[in-house]
């Protein structure tokens, strides 16, 4: 057993003095972040993005905290408000590459209105939403994506609300890119994030993640490996799925793929072009 | 010297512009101090629009930013006349466009009644009714010199409307006091 000094290939992207993360063992968030960083690394390597121009913005929640592990300019701001903060950053300096990370509660629950309007404006930022079906940091309350019937700490008799199909909602607006991947398919997260970094307009990637400690407890899959394998079984890859396939259904499967790929002018283009 | 001027009309009649022109002319060109407040009905176009201008030799004479007892009142449209009649004083100089505002309401006041809107139309457009009235007001009151208002018009009014506005102002100034 050799003891040597070496660093992980992603360490250059991380505030390593904050690692290990505060995430529970087996939490999917770190997998998603790793995949994103590999996608970003490719862009940096090919010279299309300068690391100094990258800004990460997170709201509140486990997923939002990804923003404070990355060794970039970053901001950890208010619950639900990462997108408007990011809009301000981008408009103040359009040269920046602005990335929002957050959970489904942060991005589509409390921040839902901002998400709609960011997509409507086709504002030139990337939003990566991690869906773990629950409010994890606050202890397991119902989320906008919690499936019908699931018992959470605030729906102890079963969730009476149908979940929000965020991919479908964002796709219905002017977003240039809408894709979904899963932490069980890190190569697709990497690929989609890489692609999004090279695009303009509003880019939205949903990453279906695992929360064995909190959500797993609600659905009887508390073991990280077991939950990972259960999610993996349900993930169906389609290159260009239709919006009818976007609804997340634990029984029938979760379709990942690129739902929307467009190259419409972004908000910055319109701003620069005046009223033409 | 302190004059409180109340201007009432409909949205679109240039009431607020009249307030700003008087204020700018007085404060920038006539060496007077001026305060103007405006109010308008946010709900409807064509609703009541009001400018309240106080012109004084010195800022210290103005103790309240709004008109309380008008020395001069202009009615371009008969909004809430009963309300406004209550704040007029017997000596208040009242200018009305007699094509739209009933003269009989003002029989107790120092009334200047003219068909301002048709005068304006005869020189080009009803839209400059406000400047015809303002010109007449300058003639009657001697509030300031007409050239001061002309300077203010040059500063605020877009090029293509300037000539017409100045013409209207001069037309009003030529009316009998």
């Amino acid at each position: 057993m050799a003891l040597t000094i070496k660093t992980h290939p992603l360490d250059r992207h991380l505030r390593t003095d904050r690692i290990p993360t505060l995430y529970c063992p087996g939490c999917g968030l770190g997998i998603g972040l790793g995949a994103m960083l590999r996608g970003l690394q490719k862009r940096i390597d090919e010279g299309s993005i300068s690391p100094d121009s990258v800004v990460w913005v997170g709201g509140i929640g486990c997923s939002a905290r990804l923003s404070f592990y990355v060794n970039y300019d970053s901001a950890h701001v208010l619950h639900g408000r990462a997108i408007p903060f990011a809009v301000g950053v981008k408009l103040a300096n359009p040269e920046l590459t602005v990335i929002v990370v957050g959970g489904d509660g942060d991005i589509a629950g409390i921040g839902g209105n901002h998400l709609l309007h960011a997509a409507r404006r086709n504002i030139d930022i990337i939003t990566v939403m991690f869906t773990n079906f629950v409010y994890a940091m606050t202890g397991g309350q119902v989320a906008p994506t919690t499936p019908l019937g699931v018992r959470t700490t605030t729906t102890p008799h079963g969730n009476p609300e149908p979940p929000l199909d965020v991919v479908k909602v964002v796709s219905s607006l002017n977003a240039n890119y809408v894709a979904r991947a899963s932490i069980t398919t890190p190569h697709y997260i990497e690929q989609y994030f890489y692609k999004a970094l090279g695009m303009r307009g509003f880019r939205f990637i949903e990453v279906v993640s695992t929360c064995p400690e909190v959500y797993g407890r609600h659905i009887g899959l508390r073991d990280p490996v077991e939950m990972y394998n259960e999610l993996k079984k349900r993930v169906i890859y389609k290159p260009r799925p239709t919006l009818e396939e976007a609804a997340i259904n634990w029984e029938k499967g979760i379709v990942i793929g690129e739902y929307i790929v467009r190259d419409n002018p972004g908000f910055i283009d319109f701003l620069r072009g005046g009223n033409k | 010297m302190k004059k409180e001027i109340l201007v009432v009309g409909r949205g679109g009649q240039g009431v607020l512009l009249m307030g700003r022109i008087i204020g700018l002319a007085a404060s920038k060109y006539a060496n007077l101090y001026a305060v103007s407040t405006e109010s308008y009905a946010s709900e409807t176009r064509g609703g009541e629009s009001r400018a309240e201008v106080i012109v004084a030799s010195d800022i210290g004479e103005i103790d309240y930013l709004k008109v309380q007892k008008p020395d001069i009142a202009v009615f371009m449209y008969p909004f809430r006349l009963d309300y406004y009649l209550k704040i007029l004083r017997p000596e208040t100089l009242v200018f009305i466009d007699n094509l739209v505002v009933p003269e009989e309401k003002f029989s107790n006041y120092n009334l200047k009644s003219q068909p301002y809107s048709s005068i304006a139309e005869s020189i080009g457009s009803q839209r400059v009714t406000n400047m015809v009235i303002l010109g007449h007001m300058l003639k009657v009151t001697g509030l300031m010199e007409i050239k001061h208002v002309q300077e203010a018009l040059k500063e605020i009014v877009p090029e293509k409307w300037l000539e017409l506005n100045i013409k209207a102002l001069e037309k009003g100034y030529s009316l009998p006091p």
Partner: protein
Amino acid sequence: MAHALSLISKENKKYRVNVIIDRCKECGLCINICPVKVLSKSGILNKNGYRPPDPVNIEKCIGCRLCEYSCPDFAIFVEGVGK
């Protein structure tokens, strides 16, 4: 920034698997995902009380890096070795 990290490193002729001992949270995802079953839980307790994986069957490693990609804690990585 780069402070010394204690590793478990094992290699075959083509690949070296490195486990950063103190980052591991013992979730088991790497052991589960490895298609050729290189990894097995070690007996070491790291500073947080977790037992990191040990590439006991390193000779089987095919360099697919699924362990690296599936580790949520940046605790395992695979390198190519040799020429």
